[in-house]
Each structure stands twice: as C-alpha cells, then as structure tokens.
C-alpha cells in the first residue's frame, strides 16, 4: 500500500461521493469526471498504461461530456424537484449499499488470494496488447465493433426527433 495509491483512491472515492451527493446535476457530472480521472490514474499506478489512457479518453473525454450534454438538453440543472428520494427510501438504499460493502469487505479479508506475495510488475507493452487483440481476441474485437456501431445507430434513432406524421 503505497502513498500514491492511497491518495488516488481517496480522490476517486471523494469524487464518486460528490457525484452522488451534489444537488446540481452539472456539478454531479463534473465530480463524476474527477472520479473517472482518478480511476484512470489508478490504472496508471497499477502499471496498465494503455488502459489508463483509454479510460481518460473514453470516460472523461466522452461519457462525462455526454452526460453534461444530456443534463443541459433535459434542463435538469434548474429542476425544482428535490434531488433525493424521501428519507425512508433513502435510508433503505444506504442500508443495502452498506450491507453489500460489509459482505465484500468480509470476503476480501477472509480470502486466501490477498496473502499472495508481491509480484513484480508484469510487462504489458502496447505492442503485446495489440498482438493479443489481433490474434487471440480477434473475434471478440470484431463483435465489440459491431455492437458499438449498432448501439450508436440505435441511440441516434431513439433520440431523434419524431416527425409529426399523420395521425
């Protein structure tokens, strides 16, 4: 447990909590971008350079900006409805999340996997990753490309303004 890891994890968790607690939706989206950037930095800290940069590009560069666009398009920033559920339901949600965290923490501390000795940093150059993607994972790569195309066309069709056709 090094100091950089602790700092990055703290930044990520604070960003995530802020994204879930702020009242204004635009502030939530910006805090979410901080949390995503923290996760990308955690990937870099763990030695996965390509993944860290992909995370920054996709999440901070695309998804956070997309969420800001949707917030502005739906005028969610100036809605007057209270942002949180009523208190009993909120209490239930936090209780469920806390229970799941307790179960996960119990499982982590009782598993044998955490007692493995420290490994040297595994080598994963971008070249190795590219070769793996093009050789052993070629079919999943094609499928994911097809799925992304279909999903984006579907998203455009769903969000397109309907024509006032003859009723």
């Amino acid at each position, binding site marked *: *447990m090094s100091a950089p890891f602790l700092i990055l994890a703290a930044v*990520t*968790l604070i960003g*995530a909590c802020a*994204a*879930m607690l702020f009242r204004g*939706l635009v502030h*939530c989206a910006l805090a*979410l971008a901080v949390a995503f950037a923290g*996760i990308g930095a*955690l*990937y870099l800290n*763990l030695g*996965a350079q*390509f*993944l860290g940069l*992909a995370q920054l590009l*996709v*999440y901070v560069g695309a*998804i956070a900006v*997309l*969420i800001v666009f*949707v917030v502005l*398009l*739906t005028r*969610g920033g100036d*809605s007057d*409805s209270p942002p*949180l*559920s009523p208190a009993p339901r*909120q209490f*239930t*949600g*936090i209780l*469920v*999340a*806390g229970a*799941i*965290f307790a179960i*996960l*923490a119990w499982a*982590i*501390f009782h598993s044998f996997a*955490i007692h*493995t000795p*420290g*490994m040297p940093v595994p080598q*994963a150059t971008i070249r190795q*990753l590219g070769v*793996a993607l093009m050789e052993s994972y070629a079919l*999943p790569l094609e499928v*994911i490309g097809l799925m*992304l195309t279909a*999903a*984006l066309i*579907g*998203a455009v069709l*769903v969000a397109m*303004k*309907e024509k006032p056709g003859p009723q």
Partner: protein
Amino acid sequence: MTPLAGCLLASSMLFAVGLAGALTRRNAILVLVGIELMLNAANLNFVAFWRFGPHSGALTGMVFVLFSIGVAAAEAAVGLALILAVYRHTKTTDLRQLIRRRG
C-alpha cells in the same frame, strides 16, 4: 494489508457508493451515473487481479477491461438517448413522477 487487498477494498467502496447513489437518487441521469461507477469498480478489480495475480502474462484482465470500457460506452450512449426520448414525451427525468404517471 497487501496491495491487492487495498485495491479490492477501494473498488468495493466505489461499488457501494455507486449502488447507494443508484438506489437513492431520483433523477434518471444520476441513476445511470451510479451504474457507471459500479461498472468502473468492477474494472478496477480486473486490473488489480491482473497486476497482482499469478498469471499476469496472459493479459486476459487487461483485454477484458478494454472490452468492458467499450460496452460501457455503448450502454451510456443508449441509456442517455432513452432518457432524452422519455424526457421529450413527459418533460421530466424524475423517476418518481414517471412511476406515478405510469407512462
């Protein structure tokens, strides 16, 4: 605490925060944000096991996270498009109002 346990603990905290947000917020966009946070927590687990696991030469964890990021991008695009379409019909993204109206 070993580094692997630290990573797993951080990612389970992130998962709990995302789950609490998805269960307690009323706005549909923020529920989607909570789901994205939970997905990222799972990705962090994959990277941690790739880094500290015994078979790190296989690159399976990294490739899985790469595919997972792609799926998450598609999911966010479709989910936000659905929210936009619903907003255009009902002029609200408040889930409680949407449930009360039943479409």
